[in-house]
């Protein structure tokens, strides 16, 4: 069974999320305080974390940062605030995706969770090289020389999506549909923040990227395979 940890201070919403997730076949751990989240996480590591932004104790963004320090588990932020800076802050702290309350419907929530748990590039296997990086898709590893680079599952998927088709320019919308599984959205902040995070891990100089290149006004492409 897949375990989903739900961190939300609203008991009723947490319970409701529990009902919905259980009825969709997930195991659920409910946590209502930010400062308890890390302990529960360590005692019983989940496959995915649903994390509210506003929490008593320590806030969701801080919780996200703490979890990210020790795990690459997919994190989906739940935000009641629609303000850009909250979303960007959450993504920068290491969240893979975010959902704004109230959700459109139950199906949307389940779809997002399933996308984050599934491997998106199931068709790609073997080794990919890009720049001086070697990506072992099967083993889910990225190496520069002998050094292993730690990437979250989403960052890995993003890198593979770009690297499997080097030179092709991906629009932000194309990446959203390929990596996040969105059919239609206009929120490109998600892509921008994750590209920044990915660059900070894999580029020699994140200010002058050589692997994930920006194509002005269009999107991104994987740079030199040489």
């Amino acid at each position, binding site marked *: 069974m897949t375990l989903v940890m739900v961190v939300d201070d609203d008991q009723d919403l947490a319970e409701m999320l529990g009902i*919905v997730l259980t009825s969709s076949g997930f195991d659920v751990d409910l946590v209502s305080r930010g400062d308890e989240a890390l302990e529960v996480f360590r005692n019983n590591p989940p496959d995915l974390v649903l994390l509210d932004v506003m929490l008593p104790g320590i806030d969701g963004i801080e919780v996200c940062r703490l979890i990210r320090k020790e795990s690459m588990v997919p994190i989906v932020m739940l935000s*009641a605030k629609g303000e850009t800076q909250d979303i960007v802050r959450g993504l920068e702290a290491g969240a893979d995706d975010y959902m704004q309350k109230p959700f459109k419907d139950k199906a949307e929530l389940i779809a997002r969770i399933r996308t984050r748990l599934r491997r998106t590039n199931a068709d790609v296997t073997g080794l990919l090289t890009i720049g001086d990086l070697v990506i072992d898709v099967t083993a889910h590893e990225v190496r520069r020389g002998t050094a292993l680079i730690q990437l979250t599952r989403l960052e890995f998927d993003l890198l593979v999506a770009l690297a499997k088709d080097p030179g092709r320019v991906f629009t932000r919308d194309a990446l959203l549909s390929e990596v996040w599984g969105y059919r239609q959205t206009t929120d490109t902040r998600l892509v921008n923040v994750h590209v920044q995070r990915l660059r900070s891990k894999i580029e020699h100089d994140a200010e002058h990227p050589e692997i994930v290149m920006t194509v002005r006004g269009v999107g991104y492409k994987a740079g030199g395979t040489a």
Partner: protein
Amino acid sequence: MKGIRYALKHSLVTKVILSTVFLSLGVVWLTGSALYSRLADGIRSTSLNSSLAESRYTFFNAEYQMLASSQLKVEDRKRILAEFVVSTSTQGINEERREVIFLKTPGVKPSTVSYEMSSNIIKNSSIPEDLRKRVQKNSKLQYAYAAAKYNDGGIVDSLFVGQKIKIPDVGRYEMYIVFSLKNQSTTLDLIFNSLLVTGIALLLLISLITWLVVRQVVRPVREAARIATQFTQGDYSQRMKVVSTDEMASLANSYNEMAHSIEQQISRLEHLSRVQQRFVSDVTHELRTPLTTLRMASEVIHNQRQSFDPLVARSSELLAAQLDRFERLLEDLLEVSRFDAEVAVLEPVEFDVISLIKRCAKDFDIASDSGAPEIQVRSDQVAVSIRADIRRVERVMRNLLSNALDHSEGKEVVVTVVATDSEVGIGVRDYGSGLDESALIRVFDRFWRADPSRARSRGGTGLGLSISLEDARLHNGELDAWGRPGLGAHFVLTLPRNAGSSINARPIKATPIDFHQEIFYQ
């Protein structure tokens, strides 16, 4: 010329200096010419008096010499006379040389001997006829100013002084002494030039002084203007320096007091706005979380409706629908309060507006009951790329389209896109029930509805057009409405192609081209 006019209009210094110079020019001109004429008169009369005195003595001397020599022979007398003429004419130095002319008065007893002579380089014809007549008639000394013609061709302004001279046994003669005025006019020229130079120097000095003085006054004014400008641009901490106790200082003090009070007001308002912002954000959070629970609960119930009795099943449908509506209303209200708190932010990206419109139109067509396409998109261009907040533009388009479809009464809705280099116009035209004058005025008002009794078929919140207008204005664009009862309505969104630039024209007019006024009013 243009430059001067500009400087006059915009620079206090130039204005003051120019008017000072013009006024002083008048004063210097008046005093200068008065001074010059006084001096000239004085010099002329002094030299006239001395010339006349000298002449009187010379004439007396001449008569005496001739009288004394009356016993001598003609040749000797002539020699004495010649010597006298020479000595008299050479009395002056250089320019001061006088010329002496001895003429026989015509028409009196002809004599065989002529004592006519002159210092020889001046033409006798130089003597004015009028003076000769006066000399012949009067026994007293006479004078006149005239030009003396010299034998070498030179002409010099001169004073002619003449008197009758009796030479015993010989008859009447006239003696003239010609004083050159060359020296005098040189003096007068010198005076004139000195006055001119002094006058010009004075004018320059006055301009310089004026400039210095005006600058003293203008510099603090300029400084004040600079500070006020910075204040206007939002630097509310700017204050004027108070260094003295003059009028400038009292201006500075009053200004600073005003600035202080404005700064306080602004920070109070900013505080209120922050409170409002936080309130909005709190309301969002507080309302959204229970709404999420409600929606999920309602969905779980709704999914089980087949097992309910029909009344409960219908209730669950109503519950789900009303929760949808509640959510839309909440989102719209929050958007409105963001506009009111001026915290709405533009997030512009580059996109093709035509494909956006087509996508929206397709969504509506899919949702429509008839299935036949109700929305037509017309444009000369295949794609129009603009830089704008795509989320907001899409929201405006969806609002305008859903509005048009609600009121189209089943007739087609036409979307026209016209782009210029700097603007894009998007017109949404329907041929349905239309709007009258009073409705046009209120159409962008919050919660206003064209016909309150109408079914809310598409479940609008009543805030759509008001939000659309704010969205358009956030881009520096405009949203215009046109309508006639029974002839439909036309909403035109005009956006700058680069969000934030201003729009200079409306590529599409609000009055649609298929509307002919004369036909309507017949």
